[in-house]
């Protein structure tokens, strides 16, 4: 018993240190972003214009919405590789529906896509929670299945802009107070997620399950339910993102968002979400998403050949992640020094 208490105390200390580190981490990423912005502005004065910033945020909106769900999944020590396929599937079905029933209200289309996503995510949650299949395997398998279903429902053909009613495409192009609707949706999602994670019982339980599954179970948390919920949320957000994606690009294809899950995971990792579980903050993933969005936005502005973009992206992410680790090590060492005094 005494040992348990001691260990808990030690873990408490660790928690505080971890908290400090995350703040440090975010500050680092923020500085990185600011430096990048200054450099970009010097190289191309059209970077810091309202128009371009609006573009940048619009293009980042879908990524950042997906990052919320991915963070929750990773916090529970899982990973979801199927979101690109879920996104494509819900986008495809929604696009087919609106092209068949053009009078459908856009909100109904968004609802339909989200529900399809929730169903996809629930299946995954069931596999992970009830059948104890490792998330990476379960999502890998379901990725194949959802992707296959996308091709099957579409019969290999595309749904392109002229088949979609104008009010559907308008979801992604309409503006509220001069701000693109996608940005508004992302902001609403972030506020909701912030409240959910920090101020609701279920939100805190997600972190409890992630940081110590055994302890969470012993303290009466329904671990299966939490796991299931997390994957269902991820699915729902992917479904929503699918509708937004299809509306934004005005086309639904079988290979929509193929491999996009990796970009989302990269945004989470940059934002300080730990693959070991239990650690991750809304502000972190927001910065991580913006950082990746900025890279995508900046390279064309600098007239970098599109063929260089992928490599530069890889390099910058690698440098940022390694810098993060080094900064954190340094901080840890300082903590130890302070402690021994």
């Amino acid at each position: 018993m005494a040992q348990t208490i001691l260990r808990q105390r030690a873990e408490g200390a660790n928690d505080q240190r971890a908290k400090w580190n995350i703040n440090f981490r975010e500050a680092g990423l923020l500085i990185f972003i600011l430096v990048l912005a200054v450099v970009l502005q010097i190289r191309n004065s059209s970077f810091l214009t309202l128009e371009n910033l609006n573009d940048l945020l619009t293009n980042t909106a879908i990524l950042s919405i997906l990052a919320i769900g991915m963070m929750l999944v990773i916090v529970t020590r899982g990973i979801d590789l199927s979101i690109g396929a879920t996104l494509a599937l819900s986008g495809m079905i929604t696009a087919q529906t609106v092209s068949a029933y053009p009078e459908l209200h856009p909100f109904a289309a968004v609802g339909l896509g989200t529900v399809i996503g929730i169903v996809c995510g629930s299946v995954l949650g069931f596999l992970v929670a009830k059948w104890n299949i490792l998330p990476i395997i379960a999502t890998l398998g379901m990725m194949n299945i959802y992707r296959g279903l996308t091709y099957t429902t579409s019969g290999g053909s595309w749904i392109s802009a002229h088949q979609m009613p104008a009010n559907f495409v308008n979801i992604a192009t309409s503006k509220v107070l001069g701000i693109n609707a996608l940005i508004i949706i992302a902001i609403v999602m972030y506020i909701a997620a912030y409240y959910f994670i920090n101020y609701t019982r279920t939100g805190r339980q997600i972190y409890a399950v992630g940081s110590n599954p055994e302890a969470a179970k012993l303290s009466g948390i329904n671990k299966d339910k939490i796991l299931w919920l997390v994957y269902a949320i991820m699915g729902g957000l992917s479904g929503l993102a699918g509708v937004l994606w299809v509306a934004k690009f005005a086309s639904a294809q079988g290979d929509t968002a193929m491999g996009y899950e990796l970009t989302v995971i990269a945004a989470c990792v940059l934002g300080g979400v730990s693959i070991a579980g239990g650690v991750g903050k809304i502000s972190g993933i927001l910065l991580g998403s913006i950082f990746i969005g900025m890279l995508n936005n900046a390279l064309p502005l600098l007239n970098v050949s599109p063929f260089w973009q992928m490599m530069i992206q890889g390099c910058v992410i690698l440098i940022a992640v390694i810098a993060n680790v080094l900064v954190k090590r340094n901080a840890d060492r300082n903590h130890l020094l302070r402690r021994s005094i």
Partner: protein
Amino acid sequence: MQRVIADKQAWSPKQFFLQWEWILLVVFIGVNIMNMYLSPYYMDFFNLRDATMAFLDKAFIVLPMVFVMILADIDISVASTVALSSVVMADLYQRGVPMEIAVVICLVVGTACGFINGLLIVKFKELSAVIVTLITMILYRGIAYVILENQAAGNFPEWFSYLGWGYVGEIPFIMIVFIAFAIVFGLLLHKTTFGKHVYAIGTNPTASRFSGIPVDRVKIIVFTLTGFMAAVTALFLTSKMGSTRPNIANMYELEVIAMAVLGGVSTAGGKGKMIGAIIAIFLVGLLRYGLGLINVNAQLQLIIIGGLLIAAVALTQVKRNKSA
């Protein structure tokens, strides 16, 4: 997470035949019977031989992937390594480097990619293998795009196509090379100290370090081997296709991982056998071939393979839950 390792149990026929590999073998035979039933031409030596040639190229990466997964790591950069080494080889050849040297450089590039993965994973333990190989996956494929942009490169000399299409007597060259590698990797995993080290690290890295196993070195070697085998795949695949593009071998990593998992290798580490993975390679390959025979389209094949993967893992999981 701690795991208790039971003492070595006495051999019992029940335990022996309940192993995953036997189940796989039964499914494998089932697939073959199904294929025979579907097409009267299936059980023909030449037919089977050519069907096998079609999927053996990715099989090379499955062999080291078994090691990686037993270490409780994962390498998702393999397909990008294939692309990078293939593209470098083709580009050098187009610039006038003799093909023999380009082939060697292809192997060197792949090995270097694997070594970099291993080094990063060992030096930055805070990042898991998933993260490191995720980043290098973007990076390697990105470099391939920088080199070739959106072009295809090919026109290789005559002898190079022998790798993918040649025969030694009646047996395809690629098959012989694969069998040789499979034997080497099988022996390495099951009959050497190195193999035992891999299992030990996968089961309990901390205990392994305390018992004097050079954990870092083993990891670097395993990832370097993976890079090397990815380059071998690059050689055979490029030879088979006759040309290369930066998007070659797209999504191979997932198929490779799926084959290893189906073969009974656990991503939680410490578990799995080489023979299981090898059976799984042929199982998936011939299943695809059989589905192709009855005109099941590629999309439905995706669904079936995904379902098979989940069913396989769910089955082992249920078995484990019962025994626990």
